[in-house]
């Protein structure tokens, strides 16, 4: 098994520490480059200044499973198993938290999870009304009534099949 040398400590914005295997942490590009910059230093603590602990935990959970599944299914079937896990992983995350998670993942530069979270948000808003989506993203409607009527006229057919959440 991995020795303590292969561990790194990730520190959340609240100062909470997470001990993580290097194999897991190396999926976070920012952690990788920080560690490369201070190579040779015994200090293996990386501060993720703007990332809250709950998001650090989610990201670690994702990549821990990612690494494990990859090891276990080297011969094939990894993608299928990962998809299964991703589904389960996303189910336990509150829809509002997805926004915070995408910010965190973007900051940590973790491509695989970034795609997963972006797709999850896209799926969540897909069949929602404009009003819901505005509220979800905190968007202020800056169209005048005339402009809005004009757009509605142009895309009349596009309003079918909407469900309000």
């Amino acid at each position, binding site marked *: 098994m991995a020795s303590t040398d292969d561990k790194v400590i990730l520190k959340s914005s609240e100062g909470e520490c997470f001990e993580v295997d290097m194999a897991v942490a190396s999926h976070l590009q920012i952690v990788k480059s920080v560690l490369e910059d201070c190579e040779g230093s015994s200090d293996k603590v990386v501060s993720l200044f703007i990332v809250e602990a709950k998001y650090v935990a989610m990201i670690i959970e994702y990549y821990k499973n990612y690494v494990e599944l990859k090891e276990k299914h080297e011969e094939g079937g990894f993608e*299928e198993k990962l998809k299964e896990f991703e589904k389960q992983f996303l189910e336990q995350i509150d829809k509002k938290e997805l926004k915070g998670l*995408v910010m965190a993942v973007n900051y940590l530069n973790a491509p695989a999870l970034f795609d997963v979270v972006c797709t999850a948000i*896209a799926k969540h808003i897909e069949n929602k009304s404009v009003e819901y989506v505005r509220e979800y993203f905190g*968007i202020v409607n800056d169209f005048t009534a005339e402009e809005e009527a004009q*757009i509605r006229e142009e*895309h009349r057919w*596009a309003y079918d099949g909407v469900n309000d959440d």
Partner: protein
Amino acid sequence: MALPRHLISHILTRVPAPTLRRFKKNCKQWGSEIGSSFFVRKQVDYVSRTRYREGAVLSSSARSLQFLDCENMRVELRRIDFPFDGRRGVSVIGSCNGLFCLAWMDKVLVLWNPCTKVCRDFAISGPVVRRHYGLNWLGFGYDGTRDEYKILRLHRHETAQIMEGTQVDIFSSKTNSWKELPILRWEIGLVGQSQPGTLVDHALHWLVEYVTRWENFEIDGIFRFKTVAKAILRFDLVEEKPSLILIPPDIDCRHPLYEFELRGFGGFLSLTHHNEEGHIDMWRVGLDKFKEIERFSAKFLTAAWTKIITIPCMTQLPLNKRLEPLWLMEDGKLLLHVQKIYGFITKKRKRAEEISVEQKKFYVYDPKSEEFSGCEIKGCKFFNRITAHSHTLLSPNSF
């Protein structure tokens, strides 16, 4: 919490194009983002790279397309609404980056985005189809290196008596004209219905018969007999070069053509083989592992074929019907449809003792449990062509 603009853009790239049009009115920033050509391009790239939400479109010569919704087992009808008169005769040549290439009455070629309803009529000089003796085969695809949409036309080049080869013409969206390519000297037969080419990996593919041997007989004049082998004609749209791919070595290449089908599922080329005993093998070709070999005095490519599914014989079907793969669904199950077989009946096929009265038109095969389950697809009308399609907002007039 408001997300920065670039993150919103990444998320919107993954929202299906029909919904995006609705989101244009969220606010001015979203409106300009979704309407920008940069964003449209980005979504096209994402969709074509990941085959995000790719679906099957079923078509016939009728003026509407049936978008298959596997999740709800229904089809959504979309009328082909470009401004031609209402006569029938529209055929789908292909779909690429959200655009359909349609031929109308063999005279007009149109690029059409069913999502934005924008169309572009290619003012083509001369007929789309060259009516010689043989058949005309068309295919549609995209050459990303030149940002060019291309239409390929194959037809038999014939002089008075002897079949001389295959004429290849290519139409480019940039020059808006046809260009003649060197005649293919291979003795390949374009047989069967004039099926459009299967687009996978910037190349079009057709199943062809390759003449391996001619023999002369003399009985009241000279007759010529040919021995043929099945092969896949691949035409690379970037290099504008043809090649022939051998079918999997496990299959006897002398099997009749009706036992095979070529499909482009989920970004890979697959070959279906209907075995005489009634089971179906689906093969997938690794398009990156070609090797050139000499066979039948011509250069062929060998490819790495993998058998992905073997579907057992559906003994409940009457002998004049068979199952044909329709779509590989997200959960790994295969959607099949029942097709009538014309002209031949295999006697080797196993049959159930009693055939139940209730016959379904569609079946889902689960390779894990090795079981079939019959299903209905709501609203599905007659179709004879299956095309893979993804929605984008790309305008056919933007190139």
